[in-house]
């Protein structure tokens, strides 16, 4: 076999295509992501930019007037009603997200490491086959004055008159939202936990870690992204929801989502509605930052665990 000479090497090197410099070069396999990315750019990023620009305009009776100003944001800043409604939404979101993640975490653990079939997963996902409103009204039936819970408590003599506080209260909103969000939280956690191989857990036990230590030092840090994703996904959907609080939250069931919808639909004031939506988005980002910092302080964020 003939040995390759330096000249051969130089010639072959010339034939190798050099990658185009950024921004002309696309990462390998980019084509697979190009279509959904283009969809998102066109149908999400672009409308969001338009909405953001609109939030600095004014409106007169459904007609937007492109006059630059910050009056919408100033108005929101001093609107106590908006902040009260936002606070109601944030509380709904935080409680819903917290309980959705806490309740679905052990189920995800069972499904990934213990269960031999996916029957439990399918049972949890079964609730998706009923409509959102049907589930809301079902909870009204369960929690109502003459509902399942009150009837049971009355018939067993535990109470002598129906509990009025369980329906048309923040409790009713949150329990219904947990029911709606739990499958989403569970799916994200299952997906994240499947990346934590069983061998890692066994290795930790072999090295002397107790059960709680495996959870705290291996599973939680390695499913960190799943936990954050699961929490934020549930939080954003629950905090922005205004139908469930309106139907089950009683007279305090007004969230900022309803105020935003009113601006777009009834008032025809798109600029003010847009500004409200961006203020609400800013509060969501603050919640995200706070939540991530809490996880870091609790030493379950991977950066702190691996390098601290």
């Amino acid at each position, binding site marked *: 076999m003939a040995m390759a000479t330096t000249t051969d090497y130089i010639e072959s090197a010339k034939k190798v295509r050099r990658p185009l410099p950024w921004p002309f070069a696309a990462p390998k396999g980019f084509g697979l992501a190009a279509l959904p990315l283009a969809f998102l750019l066109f149908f999400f990023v672009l409308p969001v930019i338009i909405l953001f620009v609109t939030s600095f305009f004014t409106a*007169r009776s*459904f*007609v937007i007037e492109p006059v630059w100003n910050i009056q919408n944001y100033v108005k929101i800043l001093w*609107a106590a*009603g908006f902040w009260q*409604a936002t606070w109601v939404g944030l509380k709904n979101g935080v409680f819903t997200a917290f309980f959705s993640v806490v309740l679905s975490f052990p189920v995800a653990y069972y499904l990934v490491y213990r269960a031999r079939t996916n029957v439990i997963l399918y049972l949890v996902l079964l609730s998706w086959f009923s409509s959102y409103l049907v589930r809301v009204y079902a909870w009204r039936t369960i929690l109502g004055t003459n509902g399942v819970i009150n009837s049971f408590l009355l018939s067993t003599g535990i109470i002598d008159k129906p509990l*009025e506080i369980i329906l048309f209260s923040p409790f009713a909103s949150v329990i219904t939202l947990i029911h709606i969000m739990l499958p989403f939280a569970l799916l994200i956690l299952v997906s994240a936990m499947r990346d934590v191989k069983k061998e890692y857990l066994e290795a930790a036990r072999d090295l002397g870690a107790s059960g709680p230590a495996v959870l705290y030092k291996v599973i939680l840090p390695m499913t960190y992204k799943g936990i954050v994703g699961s929490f934020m996904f549930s939080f954003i959907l629950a905090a922005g929801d205004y139908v469930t609080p309106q139907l089950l939250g009683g007279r305090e069931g007004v969230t900022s989502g309803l105020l935003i919808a*009113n601006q777009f639909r*009834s008032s*025809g004031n798109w600029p003010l509605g847009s500004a409200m939506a961006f203020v609400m988005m800013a509060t969501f980002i603050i919640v995200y930052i706070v939540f991530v910092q809490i996880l870091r302080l609790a030493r379950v964020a991977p950066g702190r665990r691996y390098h601290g």
Partner: protein
Amino acid sequence: MKKGRNDVGVQKARTADLLEDIMLDRRNFLFGTAAIAAGATLGAWVPQARAEVGGNLEIMAWEGYTLEKETEAWRKQHNMGVRAAIMSTQDDVTAKIVGDNAVRLDLAEYSNGYNAIYKELEVLKPVDVSNVPNYNKDDIYPPFYQGDMWYWDGTQWAIPWAWGLDTIVVNPELAGVEVKSYTDLLKPELTGKLAFLDNPLTVWPQIAKVTGYGEKFPNLTKDELADCFEKLKPYRDQTKVFASSNGDVISLFASGEIAACFCVWSAVPLETAKQNVKTVAVYPTEGGAVWADAWFIPKTSENIESAYAYVNQALEPEVQASVCKTAVCSTVSRKAPALMDETTRALFDYDNFDEQFKKMKIYGQPPRTSEQYATYDDWLQVWADFRQGF
């Protein structure tokens, strides 16, 4: 030997020829598909000459008010198809006909009070009443003939065709007290048993009446508006829930959650009766709230001839009587009560129409823009604040 036409061989040959005939070569296929594509796409751009009643009619109306059943035979006769979209709020119609993205809508409804905003937005086509012969002074009750919600600047802009009352509805058994006026809703027996319906159209005028601003509504100053809702606070203390729709109120009555509703569809008792819950509509000393729906032809209308014919058909006494029965509302046609069944006719005292209607008033809406008065947006804000307890 040449075979006869009835020979089996000929039959086979003919079948083959036929197959060959219907098989397309590439050129024919390309021409054909190009023609189909052109027809499908360009057809929509070709202006349609439509001088006669017929074709497709795009309408938007409240559920139960689309008249598809009542006009079925008539439409068949005129070869007319109706594509009806259901509006859940008036804003659904507004969204379709306002702005750069307005879409075709041949006929739609507006509720009382929306005349001002639609006039300002210039989305209405003038109505040529000669095309709606059923809309005439003799056949229509006076409040609905050329009233200022539908007729201004010497032009007819919409045709009112259905109306009704929203008022207090009570479950006497749960309430435990007699309700004759709005102040009765403040009795201790009703604490935590009252519902408000989230419907500005009829609830806001009632709020103004109850707090002493009935005569001024919808033109209240901002100070008057603040005072109005300050006076309303005792009613909030009585409230258990703010219902999202008439259906929601019915559900709340049926499940025994509420004993009274501040102002809701007067036909709620008929619906709760179906669920074996007795409720009654109370016409308080302050009076009920009148709503009225009118057909209008939006600027985006294309099939105008059919739109006119449809409105005229909606005013036929038989159609009016039928709609009043199915949608539990009242008629604008003098000839319709004679065709109604007893229950439908009993919804309003038609024999003393003028006298009875004198007590009522069809209200407009707060102005969308004003330096002098509280705007619709201001009302929306205080209404939201009221709900939150501010």
